[in-house]
């Protein structure tokens, strides 16, 4: 086995080792911690880029470790795994920069960054998982590693949010475990393969397969915040902003959505799933979630809560794209994995900036904030417009492909759904933009902090401003140049042809 073959392990180690080292660091070693964090993130990104190059040239990286007599731990990197890895390791770098700025001067940073690294390690691990068993392992590790971040502030509200998060995710994990073991006892294998591994089973097992599908999707749906399993997500907004970014864009919610893609495509196989009749109900749940999330978002005055309900709505686009059962819709769903991540992380970064700099937590306090913090609000605007799905931003590309895919699959109602959802998105984002840019500010701000005394006045700390500007720029760029090589869209097409074996 060449050094190259070990790449998946190196990718895991590049966040695991810094994480463990950071746990051991004394609280006051800021510089060492920052160096460890950033070098880990940069090394990971470099390794991922190297791997991407290999995968693009048809290489598949695989590592197997025998665990149980007939079950291995498998890390395998194909196009789909890489897609998610690029998202989470790229956003991890930006979120780390952001978190360093955000948490400056606050206590217990070693613990925070340690668990932060563990979260990313688990996310990358579950992206690379080559069978359902390995996926389960990292999926549960992610649940556990996220918990200390949620309760990081140690307040009573944080403890409650953490409890609710665990009540949902641990129960979901238990269902997922039951589904996995049951499936294993039927098939004797859990290996992800194109077109799935269950279609060969005797038809007598089909009711069991439907039940297993429900168990697996329920387990994943908790993290993907499918209604009615979404209750923890709005509560979790008490956590610090970098944690929200992690939950909504880098790791947790995405892990659920990614798992749904894996289960539908590489456990059941989408055609077989559709024959079983399980994709249509999934599409209905996703559709309901999309509308419900948007409606709830309309009535939230708390900015982060509004964004949280918006996530509930938007992540279901991914499940919807998968459940429509058609090659183009699949591309739309997959690409939204990245697009939603970029746009939502931009919005959460900006929300964090508003609360850290001006003490703004509510939509009703945002009047005229565009004048005080123009760059932040430019980024926010790009993210919001993208969410609505206006061209030329990334969100438009997702919605375009979802609509085309729905038409191709003969599911015309999806178009109505998408239009309705876009209108609702506009209804809860445009008033924010209007207030921020066109209303007079109600000075003084709730709780203003000054930044940048040495180099003149700036709107906020550099580490807080750079990440949202980067993600906003990316949102714009991948929307504008959607068909350039190696954009998310092109990569999603690559996955569709290569990994799912479609034209």
């Amino acid at each position, binding site marked *: 086995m060449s050094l190259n073959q070990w790449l998946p392990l190196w990718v895991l180690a590049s966040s695991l080792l810094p994480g463990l080292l950071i746990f051991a660091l004394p609280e006051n070693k800021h510089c060492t911690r920052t160096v460890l964090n950033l070098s880990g993130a940069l090394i990971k990104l470099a390794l991922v880029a190297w791997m991407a190059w290999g995968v693009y040239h048809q290489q598949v990286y695989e590592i197997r470790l*025998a*665990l*149980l007599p007939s079950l291995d731990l498998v890390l395998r990197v194909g196009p789909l795994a890489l897609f998610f890895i690029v998202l989470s390791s790229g956003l991890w770098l930006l979120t780390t920069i952001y978190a360093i700025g955000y948490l400056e001067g606050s*206590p*217990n940073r070693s*613990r925070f960054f340690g668990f932060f690294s563990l979260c990313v390690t688990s996310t990358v691990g579950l992206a690379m998982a080559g069978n359902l068993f390995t996926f*389960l*392992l990292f999926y*549960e*590790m992610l*649940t*556990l590693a996220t*918990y*200390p971040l949620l*309760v*990081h502030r*140690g*307040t*009573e509200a*944080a*403890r409650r949010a*953490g*409890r609710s998060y*665990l*009540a949902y995710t*641990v*129960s979901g*994990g*238990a*269902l997922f*475990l*039951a589904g996995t*073991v*049951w499936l*294993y*006892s039927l098939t004797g294998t859990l290996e992800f393969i194109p077109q799935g591994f269950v279609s060969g089973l005797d038809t007598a097992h089909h009711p069991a397969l439907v039940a297993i599908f429900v168990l697996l999707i329920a387990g994943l749906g908790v993290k993907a915040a499918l209604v009615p399993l979404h209750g923890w997500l709005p509560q979790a907004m008490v956590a610090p902003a970098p944690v929200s970014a992690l939950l909504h864009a880098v790791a947790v919610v995405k892990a659920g959505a990614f798992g749904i893609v894996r289960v539908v495509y590489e456990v059941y196989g989408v055609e077989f799933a559709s024959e079983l009749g399980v994709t249509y109900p999934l599409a209905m749940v996703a559709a309901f979630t999309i509308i419900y999330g948007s409606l709830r978002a309309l009535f939230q005055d708390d900015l982060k809560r509004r964004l949280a309900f918006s996530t509930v709505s938007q992540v279901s686009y991914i499940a919807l794209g998968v459940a429509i059962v058609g090659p183009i819709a699949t591309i739309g769903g997959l690409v939204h994995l990245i697009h939603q991540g970029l746009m939502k992380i931009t919005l959460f970064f900006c929300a964090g900036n508003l609360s850290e700099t001006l003490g703004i937590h509510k939509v009703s306090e945002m009047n005229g904030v565009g004048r005080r913090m123009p760059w932040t609000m430019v980024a926010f605007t790009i993210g919001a417009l993208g969410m609505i799905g206006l061209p030329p931003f990334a969100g438009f590309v997702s919605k375009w492909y979802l609509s085309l895919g729905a038409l191709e699959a003969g599911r015309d109602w999806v178009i109505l759904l998408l239009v309705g959802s876009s209108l609702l998105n506009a209804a809860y984002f445009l008033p924010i933009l209007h207030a921020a840019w066109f209303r007079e500010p109600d000075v003084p701000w709730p709780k203003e902090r000054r930044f940048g005394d040495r180099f003149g006045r700036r709107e906020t700390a550099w580490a807080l401003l750079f990440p949202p500007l980067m993600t906003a720029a990316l949102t714009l760029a991948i929307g504008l140049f959607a068909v350039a090589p190696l954009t998310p869209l092109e990569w999603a097409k690559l996955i569709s042809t290569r990994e799912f074996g479609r034209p």
Partner: protein
Amino acid sequence: MAASAVAPQWEVFLILLPLAGALLAFLLRRGGSLIGLLSAIAIVMSAIGLAGALLDGGVRQHTVGGWEAPLGIVLRSDGLSGLMLLMGAVVGLGISLYASVWFRDDAHQAERFWPLWLLLWTALNALFLSADLFNLYVTLELLGLSAVGLTAMAGGSAALGAAMRYLLVSLLGSLLYLLGVALLYHAHGTVDIALLAARIAAGPAGWAAMALIFSGLLLKTALFPLHFWLPPAHASAPTPVSALLSALVIKASFYLLLRLWLDLFGSLAHQLSTLIGLLGATAIVWGSVQALRQRRLKLLIAYSTVAQIGYFFMAFPLTGAGLIAWHGVLYLALSHALAKAAMFMAAGNLMRHAGHDRIADMDRVAQRLPLSVAAFALAGVSIMGLPPSGGFIAKWWLLEASLGQERWGWAMVLILGGVMAAAYVFKVVGYAFTESSAPQEACTVPQSMQWIALLLALGAILLGLLVSPPMAVLAVGDPFAPLLSGREP
């Protein structure tokens, strides 16, 4: 047998070393911890030696003084006993290290602890090695009495009350067992398990003996509804004692139960397996509910033991799936030993830090004692059966056994038990992060005590990643073969 004359007699070391240690510690009084630690290290080495010998040469039999059964004493070891001895050795070493720090400032307590603990360890090792029912009775009694002595050590009315109850339960349990053995001896003229296995037959005498022996052992293993004595005894003892009671002592009577089921009674009455399984399932639910309701940390952990004991009995009704159910239960016993010892130690550290163990009054201990909280949480991961941990592997096997046979009810209990365990573990972890308004003493806790707890917890996690070595030891002599072959339709 010629080769064994030259090869080291690990079995004998495993029994004589702690016995000698106990006597020395009793006679010398001072220096108990040094004697204890040296014995512990020697026991670990002997246990490893025995496991190595088992892997090389298969099942071992040693006749003490050259007298063959049924006259002499025979020490027999296969994979099952090897694994149990290893578990006892590793956890025992951890407990000895922890105790040497815990009792450092209290010479009076230390003087009482070390002889009793080493005596208990002697009994434990002898029990895992014994091959006849009467020797097993002797070891069981010795184990029970030294455990009671250790429980009473803390002093105070609560501890003495708990110890008294424990003593009565322990004596009653051994007495029932002894009655059963007497019946068997009367009917078949031997107490050697292997000889008995060939002679035993279904009939009133066999059933009565089984009923007596099983009720005695179930009482000692604290299976619901015979668990009532366990929480007060385990919670009121000094921390190292709580750890060894929960991690090791209940495993001894369970091992005996399992051994007798496998070799003697399994073929006699498999109708009973459903009943035992149901009691186990009830124990899981009841223990977890009680654990959730507790306000004090050590009681919560003790009730968690009640729930975990329930899992041990889940394998009995699931054996139709072959070996995996048994493997699951044994793996659970191993990881529970590590995890529960770690949990009690972490709780002891938190108690020493704050001077109390009220869960809701913990004051930001996640910052102050991060290692102990990490130990508790990691041990909790194994207790609730989340990956990667030994508890997860065990639960996977048990689930596979139940779902593979489409026994949905058992699977639901297994799943539910895990979720409830998560609820009570995270109840504690959640309060570890918050502040408390109650006044706190905040004493310092030695780093070494925190590290020992963490290392044991990491051991439980590691069991989830290194499955094949323990399973290779277990496979020696195929201890589950008799039952499986007896079960063939």
